[in-house]
C-alpha cells in the first residue's frame, strides 16, 4: 500500500492533524497528484505487504460518539514515529524523493499509539 503522511503539525489545536499522522491509505501504484507529491508538509511512503490491522490502526480515530469536547478529539490514535525509521531525515524539510519505499516491518515497528 501507499500512505500519504503529514510531517509537520498542521496547528497547535489537538484536533489538527499532526506530524506522523497518516492522511490517506491507497493501493499500490496510486496515481498521486502533483500537489500530493510535492507538498513539503507531506510524504508518501510505499510499503509492500503491510498488515491490514496496521492500516486500520494508522487510520483509526476516536469513535464519533465518544464523549470528547469539540476541539479535543485527536485526528489519529496512532502515529508513525519517524525517529524509528532508518533515515529520519527523509521526513523533515524539503522533499527529496517523490515516494519513499519502506518494508512492512520498518513501518509496523514505527507505528506507535499516541498517549
Amino acid at each position, binding site marked *: 500500500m501507499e500512505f500519504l503522511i503529514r510531517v509537520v503539525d498542521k496547528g497547535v489545536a489537538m484536533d*489538527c492533524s499532526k506530524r506522523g499522522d497518516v*492522511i490517506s491509505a491507497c493501493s499500490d501504484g496510486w496515481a498521486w497528484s502533483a500537489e*500530493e507529491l510535492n507538498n513539503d508538509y507531506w510524504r508518501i511512503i510505499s510499503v509492500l505487504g503491510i498488515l491490514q490491522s496496521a492500516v*486500520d490502526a494508522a*487510520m*483509526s*480515530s476516536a469513535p464519533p460518539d465518544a464523549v470528547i469536547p469539540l476541539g479535543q478529539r485527536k485526528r489519529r490514535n496512532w502515529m508513525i514515529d519517524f525517529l524509528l525509521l532508518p533515515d529520519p531525515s527523509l521526513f523533515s524539510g524539503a522533499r527529496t524523493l517523490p515516494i519513499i519505499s519502506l518494508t512492512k516491518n520498518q513501518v509496523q515497528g514505527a507505528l506507535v499509539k499516541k498517549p
Partner: protein
Amino acid sequence: MTTTITKTIKAGGDYTTLQAWEDATPVSLVAVDQIWQGQASGAFSGASGTLLTFSGTTVDSTRYQELTTEAGASFRDNANVQTNALRWNSANGCSITSSGSYGTTINASGQAQVRFSKLQVEATTSKTTCFITGPTSDIDGCIFEAAKTKVVEINASTSILRNCLVVQRRTAVTECAKLSYGCTVVNCTFVTPNDLTKPAEVITGAGASVTTKNCAMFWGTALQAGGSAPTYTTCGNDNGTPPSGVTQFTYDTSLFQNVSDATRDYRLLSGSGLIGAGTVDATNAPTDIAGTTRGASNDIGCWQFVSAAAVVLMGQACL
C-alpha cells in the same frame, strides 16, 4: 473580500483523496478569508472505516469547508436523473463508500460549518455510519445508504439536513437516523425497504426538540423515540395515530416507485399522496434532490414529482 478556493478531487485532479483535500485546508480559513471548496468526481472507496474526517480548522459562517461535486459529476447532473431509480448507485454519479469494519464514512462531528451537497455516501458493513455532523453544518441534496444501527446522525441545533434521501438497509435495527439537539430537517426521505424487518424507530433523538418539515418517514415500529418530541410540519408516516403535523400513508408502491430492498426507487409516482402535501419552504427547499425547482407546490420528501410530459420536455431541453 472572501475568496472561494476551488480544488478538484479525482484521479488527475488537485487531490486524489478526500482526506488530502481536507488536510490541505488552511488551519484558519478566517485568517486567510477563504471558503475551501472541494469538487469531487468519480468513485471513492476504502476499507478502513472513516474515509474523511473534518477537524481542526478555524471557521465562521462565511469562511468554511464545502465538499460538493465537480460540474456534471453528481447523480443529479446525470442526463437520466428523472428516470434513474432514486437510490445509491455509483453509476449515476460521484459516490463515496466505506466497507470498513468500524467508524463513519464521513465524520464531521469535530468540525463546525461544514457544507456538503450533491454526493452519494454509502456504508456497506454493519459497523459503519454514513455521516455524522458537527454544529452549524448544512447537508443538502445527498443520498445516504447504510446497513448500520443508524445511517446518519445530525447533532446540533444549528445544523440542517435538507432534500436528502436516507435509506436504512440493515434489518431489525434501532433506527434509520439520529436527529438530536434541536437540528432542523426539511424535505428529507427516511426509509427502510418494506421487505426488511422494521427498525424500532424511524428517527431517534436526544436533547432539544428537532424541527421536522415536509419529511417522509417510513417503516419503523414507531415513528420516533428519545429526546424531546419533534415538531412536525406536513410530514408523512405509516404508523397509526400519528402525532400532530404528521399524516398517515400506506407505505407501498402507491407512494414510491419501488420500496423493496433489491429494486428500491424512492421517486414519487403519479397519484402519490405525498405530492403537493408539503409546505412551501423557498429558503431551505427551493429545489429537490434532483435539482427540480419545487415552485408553488411542495411535495413531502426529497423528491419533487414531475409529470411524464414535463420529463420529456426536460430531456429535449438537455439535447
